[in-house]
Every structure is written in structure tokens, then in C-alpha cells.
């Protein structure tokens, strides 16, 4: 082993970094972050400092049941709404002016009026026709607020989803359809194997937004005696006047929406990875 002859250089400390001045945006940003931290700390203090175990253990199980009802409402309405939306989207693009007009009227009505009002119309309106509905043997369905709410949600999201699918289907270049026709494919086959899969990829993002809107919108169900998450929360508050229940509900809704949004982003990235250049 020969000894190194190179001169030994002592380790140098790195040069000082650029000085970050306290500019106006930096002061404002730090102050605002401070405000958020203070609000967060206030919430934690309220949740733990004013924690009432009686309220928690009595109403948390009810809120968990409510969460289940909310989940059911959203899953069912998105699913059934999706099934109805595809024929409606096709009707919107129909060559018959009558079919097109009817479909447009349906979509315009449900997108142009508040969900809350639609729900009241269906729920209280159905109550006006007890005799008629009984004669048709349908009263058992409309008697339950849950069913009325679910039906309203399905009809509502059908309109929104139909618009999403219509836009998505129209975004597929005409050449795709023409090429399929040239190859001798039947119309139905062209739609299901060529147009629809591509349209679904375009529809993915607005569809995710629609699910989030539905989760948030479903809170109005609590206004016609359905005990969804919001309903259970309102019940707990009206009985205990413990404001913390609203904070719990906010945290639950927020977590679900954020988790879904992030998962949806990931799924979309994954499904469209072949489209990234």
C-alpha cells in the first residue's frame, strides 16, 4: 500500500444559501398559514377539551349507521342513474326532433332546478296521491322517505350523467365510426366495442366530480326525515347542543370526499397511461 501524496483538503462547509427576504407575499403567506394552524388547533382543542364521552358513545354509532345510509344512497343513485343515463344520452343525440326535445327537456329541468326542491316535489307531492298510488299498488314504495329520496337522486343524477356521456361520446372523432363502418361492423357493435370504451375514458373525470357532488348533495336527504350521516348529526345536535357533532360530521365528509378524489385521480392516471406521450 502506497501512501497518497495528494495534499489533504479539509472538508469545506457549503456556501451559505440565498437569503430569503421577508417579502410581502412571504409575510402574508406565513400569517395565513398561521391562521390555518390556529383554526386547526382550535378545532382539536374543541374536540378534545370539550369532549363529552356520553354524547360520543351515544351518537357515534348512529352517525356510523347514517354513514351507511349515505353510502347506500350515493352508490345506488350513481349506479342506477348511470344505467338510465346512457339511453338518455343517446336520446339527446337522436335524429328525431321529438325524442331529442323530450330528452333535452328532461335534462334541462333536472339541471336547472335545486335538488332540494325536486326532493320536496316528489316526497310531498306523492303524499297527495295516496289513493291513486294505492290503487296502482305503489304506495308501499312512496310511503318511505328513503325511497322517495333515492328516486329523486336517481332521476337527478341521470340528467347530469347523460350530459357527461353525451359530451364524451361526441368527443370521439367521427373517423372512428366511419372506419368501423368501412370494416363492416354493425352499429351496435361499433358503439359498444369502439365508441363507448373511448368515451368512458373521457367521461372519467366529470364522472368523478359527479360522484363527489352526489356525496355532498345527499346531505339534503336529512331534510325529509332520512337519517343519513347529516340526519344523524342534526339529531345529535338538536338533542345535546354539543357543537362538536358538526365537527365530527365535517371531518367524516371531508375524509370521504378527499379520499375519493385522490383515488379517482390515481385510477384516471392509471387508465390513461397509454395516452400519455
Amino acid at each position, binding site marked *: 500500500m502506497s501512501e497518497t501524496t495528494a495534499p489533504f483538503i479539509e472538508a469545506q462547509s457549503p456556501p451559505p444559501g440565498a437569503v430569503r427576504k421577508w417579502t410581502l407575499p412571504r409575510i402574508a403567506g406565513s400569517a*395565513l398559514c398561521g391562521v390555518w394552524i390556529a383554526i386547526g388547533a382550535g378545532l382539536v382543542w374543541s374536540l378534545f377539551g370539550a369532549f363529552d364521552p356520553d354524547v360520543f358513545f351515544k351518537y357515534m354509532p348512529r352517525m356510523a349507521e347514517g354513514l351507511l345510509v349515505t353510502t347506500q344512497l350515493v352508490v345506488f343513485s350513481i349506479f342506477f342513474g348511470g344505467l338510465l343515463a346512457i339511453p338518455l344520452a343517446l336520446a339527446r343525440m337522436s335524429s328525431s326532433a321529438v325524442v331529442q326535445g323530450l330528452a333535452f327537456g328532461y335534462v*334541462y329541468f333536472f339541471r336547472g332546478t335545486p335538488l332540494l*326542491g325536486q326532493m320536496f316535489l316528489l316526497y310531498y307531492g306523492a303524499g297527495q296521491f295516496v289513493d291513486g298510488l294505492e290503487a296502482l299498488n305503489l304506495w308501499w314504495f312512496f310511503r318511505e322517505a328513503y325511497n322517495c329520496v333515492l328516486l329523486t337522486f336517481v332521476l337527478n343524477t341521470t340528467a347530469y350523467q347523460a350530459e357527461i356521456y353525451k359530451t364524451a361520446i361526441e368527443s370521439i372523432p367521427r373517423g372512428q365510426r366511419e372506419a368501423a363502418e368501412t370494416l363492416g361492423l354493425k352499429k351496435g357493435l361499433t358503439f359498444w366495442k369502439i365508441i363507448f370504451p373511448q368515451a368512458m375514458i373521457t367521461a372519467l373525470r366529470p364522472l368523478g366530480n359527479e360522484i363527489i357532488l352526489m356525496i355532498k348533495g345527499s346531505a339534503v336527504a336529512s331534510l325529509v326525515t332520512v337519517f343519513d350521516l347529516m340526519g344523524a348529526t342534526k339529531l345529535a345536535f338538536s338533542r345535546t347542543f354539543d357543537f362538536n357533532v358538526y365537527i365530527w360530521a365535517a371531518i367524516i365528509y*371531508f375524509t370521504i370526499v378527499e379520499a375519493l378524489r385522490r383515488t379517482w385521480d390515481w385510477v384516471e392516471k392509471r387508465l390513461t397511461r397509454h395516452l400519455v406521450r
Partner: protein
Amino acid sequence: MDLIAQLAWGPSGWGDELAAGTMLTVSLALATLPFGLAIGLLVALGKTSGEKSLQTAANVYTTIFRGLPELLTLLIVYYGGQIVLQQIFALFTDAYVEVNGFVAGMVALGLVFSAFSSEVFASAFKGIPAGQPEAALALGLTRWQAFRLVTLPQLIRLSIGGLSNLWLILLKETSLVSVIALNDLLRNTNVAVGSTKQPLFFYSVALLIYLVLSLISAKGLGAIEDHVKRGERRVA
């Protein structure tokens, strides 16, 4: 038809109540708009600024108010605002304070509106090439002039479509204030239904009014959009 007679003006009919409710719905939406737009623009400035802490604060704002149900936000503002104000006032006086429903509705709807509009503005900012304000500064305009004369007109043009959608959503969301005892269109309809037992008729009328409001808004917004985009070259 005696149903139509129910819509008469005055003490015998509900026409004037529905009209008053419609007025409140429209004025609540109109009162929320400037406030929601201004905060949305500020939050968007935060999001697009180079300062990390400002970006974080702005993103937290959007994430929170975009992720909560509007109804829950409204109830939290209404009841929570009551508690907070009560505690602040208790320091000075023992007077009882009550949160005004209109203000609570305006704040809650404004928070939600500004969270969404900040996203619209932020993406509009990204659509304006950095060279535009830079060129304005190079020509000797002040920062404020560059914003007002160069950035803002383009910003409006790029964001008008998204903002129009938000306005239509806001108009429908005002119906939520009926739960905090504010006499908007939907609540007055509830009162009419309670007294006449004609839910189908009255809710249909109310929804029709909302539909007409949306229709008028869509027409008006379309005209505004045409106006701000008048400089764009038309294709074919």
C-alpha cells in the same frame, strides 16, 4: 281552476309570498357573488404566486370548502358563528347576539363559491402566457396597470365560462338557506304547502320559477360571454 286562484296577490293567494321569496333568493345570490368572486380571485393569486407558504394557505382553503357538503357548511357557519360571536360578545357585554340568517347564508355560500371560483381563476391565470405581463412591465406600465389592462381582460375571457356554471350552481344552492329560517323561494313555498295542502302544485310552481331564473341567467351570461370574447377571431 281554483289552483291558479291560489297564486293570487294579497292575503287570499300566495302569489306575493312566492314573489317575495324569489326576490330574496335572487338578492342572496347577487349579494354572494361579488364577495365570492373577490375572495376567489385573491385565493387564486395565492395559488399562482411563487411563494410556497401562500400557495399552501390557498390550497388548504380550496380543499376544505370544496370537500364539505354545502348544507353542512351552512349549518356550521350559522350555529358555529352564533357560538363564536356569543363568546366574543360575552367579553364585553351580556347582550344576546343572534346571527342574521341572510349574512350566514351569504358567508356559507360565499365560502363555497370562492373555493370553486379560485380553481377557475387559477386555471385561467395559467392560460395567460407569462410574456404578457412581462411585456407590459417592459413597456413601462406599473404592476397595477399591467394587471388591470393586460392580465385582467384576458383573465375574464378565460374564466367566464367556468364562472357562469358556478353562478347557476349558486342560484340553486340558495335553496339550502330555507333550513335556517330565511324566507327564500323554497321556504315560502313550504309555508304555502303547509297551509293549502297542495304540494304538487306549489313545488312545481317553485321549480318552474327556478327554471326561469336559470334560463334568464343563461341568456344574460351568454350575452356577457359574447361581449368579453368579441375580440376573438371567429373560425369559419
